[in-house]
């Protein structure tokens, strides 16, 4: 069996006019981009919107892709930006949800809905708690711990220093654990706690 065609080769073929190469590219990354958007946005419908925005942006901007970074790094950056855009749009109160929202099903109001019937209760806790992690930390956390992306690559995706990425991942993990109701096994001793007080 032939090895899969590298992304960069598919990009090159698309830029030469082969629409099929673009189709293979987006089909190859659809699952990964969807899961990124789903965990960052926390809502299946929003995630679907963000994925579609991502691929349309990729289509539009592909000519600007210079190959300085790996295609996957570049595409993740486009996807993260699509998530940020959608998240901002949601915060601004969307155009068509102004009136009569009480008539809409819960899932259309952005209320978290279970997205995977087989998820265990513990997993659901983690997924639900992820929504309470501040967005910047959440994005870094999802890329690091759910996508197993190296810190160096995350730094390129987010265009921030690698130290910032590591710090965000750590802060994100701590925030997630607290959102899940996990407490440290080491209770804070009064004598120790007073050390940090001014």
């Amino acid at each position, binding site marked *: 069996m032939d090895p899969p065609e590298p992304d960069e080769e598919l990009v090159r073929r698309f830029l030469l006019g082969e629409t099929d190469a673009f189709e293979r590219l987006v089909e190859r990354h659809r699952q990964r981009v969807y899961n990124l958007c789903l965990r960052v946005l926390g809502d299946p419908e929003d995630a679907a919107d963000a994925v579609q925005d991502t691929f349309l942006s990729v289509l*539009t901007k592909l000519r600007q892709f210079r190959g300085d970074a790996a295609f996957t790094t570049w595409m993740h950056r486009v996807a993260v930006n699509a998530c940020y855009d*959608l998240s901002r749009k949601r915060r601004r109160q969307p155009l068509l949800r102004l009136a009569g929202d009480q008539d809409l099903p819960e899932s259309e109001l952005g209320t978290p809905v279970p997205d995977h019937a087989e998820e265990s209760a513990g997993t659901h806790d983690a997924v639900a708690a992820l929504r309470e992690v501040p967005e910047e930390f959440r994005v870094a956390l999802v890329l690091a711990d759910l996508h197993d992306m190296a810190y160096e690559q995350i730094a390129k995706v987010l265009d921030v220093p690698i130290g910032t990425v590591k710090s965000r991942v750590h802060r994100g993990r*701590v925030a997630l654990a607290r959102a899940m109701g996990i407490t440290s096994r080491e209770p804070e001793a009064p004598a120790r706690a007073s050390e940090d007080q001014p």
Partner: protein
Amino acid sequence: MSHPDALLAEYVDGALAEGERAVVERHLGSCERCRDEVALARAARAALASVPETPAPSDLSAAAIAEARRRAESHPAAGAPPGRPAWYRWAGAAAGIAAALLVVALVLPHVGNAPATTKAAGDAAAARGAASPATSVETQNVNYDLAGVESLATSSRGQEGAVFGSNDQATQVPVAASVTPEKRISFADAVTCLDRAFTDPTGQQAPEGQLVRVIQARYRGVPAVLGVYLLCPGAGQPTNIVRVLVASSGGCSILTSTQATA
């Protein structure tokens, strides 16, 4: 006391080099806050390790792929990769013009003549007549899929046997009994939503063509607005392309698009 936050992530990963690990462990020996955080971070990392991947809906890339094809076919010089030889485009244009006479006979009398699913829709269709601009929103209790949207485009160009709002099970997903009808969308909001979704991000160009029909329905279960556009090749030539654009009415994002050419 300063805390080595940037090192703690890799410490929890077990990825620190010996020297840095020793630095962190010395700090942990005297900092309860960091010891607590390390314990919490380990618990969170373990919890995330058990989160399964969620299967992506199969149609997520359909809009982008359709757009790629559309650009390749209709705007080879404007953003889409050049791939078709020049003769191909000229042949296509010639075929379009040749088909235009047939379209005059077939397309226009059919636009808006099909049965709509509500009285308002029927009234709107009747009022519209042949190829007049849309002025109201038809509400359909229909859950379209891609084949249904393609059928809508095809029927809009006057193909025999296909009608708007068809209940053909082969082209539409049956509506679940539990589906709650959405709040009626105003015509202005629906048009704004289509414009927002389909405005070219580079050229800031709204959807081309004459909007002859606006439908509020669902697309693959998502509340949606469907716009039917008639495109003219210009220079007084008759319409020979029908494009259907589908946007989510909730977020005004692209769900899909398709077109039919006579």
